[in-house]
């Protein structure tokens, strides 16, 4: 599924790398522990987290994730946004909780 469809259907706001809404999303992973995401997320997954600091971009890049969804309306740091733009990493935000947005994304991806 394209990132653009997920953005529209889940009402996400995109903050960076807007040219990459065409990214393919094959799955999702929800976690706030960076090592957990390094160990268990997969290529082309979208990552749901409350973390907003710079290092989330490095993790997303290394794991070749399709994007990051930041929950609870948290605002990424300005250097996070800058780095994400440089690295072509789409950062999206939602006012919803990790539980709600993960559930919605799961349903959407599984076609429930």
């Amino acid at each position, binding site marked *: 599924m394209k990132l653009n469809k997920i953005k529209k259907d889940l009402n996400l706001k995109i903050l960076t790398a807007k040219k990459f809404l065409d990214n393919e999303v094959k799955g999702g992973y929800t976690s*706030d522990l*960076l*090592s*957990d995401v*390094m160990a268990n997320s997969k290529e082309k997954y979208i990552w749901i987290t409350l973390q907003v600091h710079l*290092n989330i971009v*490095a993790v997303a*890049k*290394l794991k070749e994730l399709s994007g990051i969804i930041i929950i609870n309306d948290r605002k990424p740091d300005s250097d996070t946004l800058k780095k994400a733009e440089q690295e072509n990493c789409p950062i999206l935000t939602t006012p919803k909780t990790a539980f709600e947005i993960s559930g919605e994304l799961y349903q959407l991806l599984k076609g429930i």
Partner: protein
Amino acid sequence: MTEKENVLTREFEIKGKDFSRAGNISSKIKEILQETGISNSIIRRAAIATYEAELNVVMYANKGILYFTLDPDSIRLKIDDEGRGIKDISLAMKEGYSTATEEYREMGFGAGMGLPNIKKNADKFKISSILGKGTTLEIFFFLNNSGAS
């Protein structure tokens, strides 16, 4: 940088506490490996191990050097740091054990997964440490068999 007889070596400096550049070395190594045609599964494992090793130096040491060696048979990483060292290595290797500060935990580090992740992803892993001096990791990936998980 030196290159002779199909051996590629690189040295990278890691600065303690410098979170702004954490992950850069792993990205660089991943790029180098992607140019060589090494299988993606090995590259993925090497990238995870490098990232965890890099972050350990950033979080727990004053500074460190990562030595990268690629030859036709293996990828070798050696990370030498100057820092507090590890008091009890078997405890540090235990999943879930961490000495990270509250601040680091809030950032999503200090899950106690770093060293276990490195070991899990490597084909061979060695660790030694002198308390108050520093820690040395040696991480190997063998290119001619699929090795560890």
